[in-house]
């Protein structure tokens, strides 16, 4: 069964450094998402992406964050200057769209990247 994959599984960085988290969504999916989960807290929506542009973003997704689909398979989240409070598990998700109908709303999640900012 196709899966969403994410790399790396764990990223450790110094405060102020840039990080890029990578995701490979399921191949025929068209909608892409990033969520994060700070340790002990709930999963929070960051951003959704469709047709090469951001569809929606949360208040968390400020100017330090950006997303990109650089080719036909990868979907990346960049944090320009990491802060201690960016330490979290970051989940990528994707969903497909049925031709001629409303999009099915089942999002499939990747295994996550644990980001630790020191």
């Amino acid at each position, binding site marked *: 069964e196709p899966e969403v994959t994410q790399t790396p599984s764990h990223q450790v960085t110094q405060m102020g450094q840039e990080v890029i988290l990578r995701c490979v969504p399921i191949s025929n999916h068209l909608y892409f*998402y990033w969520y994060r989960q700070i340790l002990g807290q709930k999963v929070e929506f960051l951003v959704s992406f469709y047709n090469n542009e951001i569809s929606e973003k*949360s208040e968390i997704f400020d100017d330090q964050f950006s997303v990109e689909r650089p080719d036909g398979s990868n979907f990346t989240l960049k944090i320009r200057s990491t802060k201690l409070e960016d330490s979290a598990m970051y*989940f990528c998700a994707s969903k497909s769209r049925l031709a001629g109908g409303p999009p099915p*709303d*089942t999002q499939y999640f990747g*295994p996550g990247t644990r980001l630790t900012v020191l």
Partner: protein
Amino acid sequence: AQSVSQHNHHVILSEAASLELGCNYSYGGTVNLFWYVQYPGQHLQLLLKYFSGDPLVKGIKGFEAEFIKSKFSFNLRKPSVQWSDTAEYFCAVNVRYSSASKIIFGSGTRLSIRP
């Protein structure tokens, strides 16, 4: 704004006990409802989902959930839990027919099963 409430933060049960985890959401329109499970050290997995039709939905591993529209609830149930059900359970909602709709998660319920 949409929100999801899970009132039980931590539930401890013995094996073979019955389980019911509460979930309420706030949104007046038509929604899709989900339960996700996160086993220790693993990623989110979809347990079950409700889009339309029979309000009693069955998922994997013997779980089921009932959508009660009048109560804005979508409680998760399992008649007899196993030690392997130890995990964090998240109720979630999104707005139906919104093309790129985000998922709103509840705060999660940690389930611990005593062997």
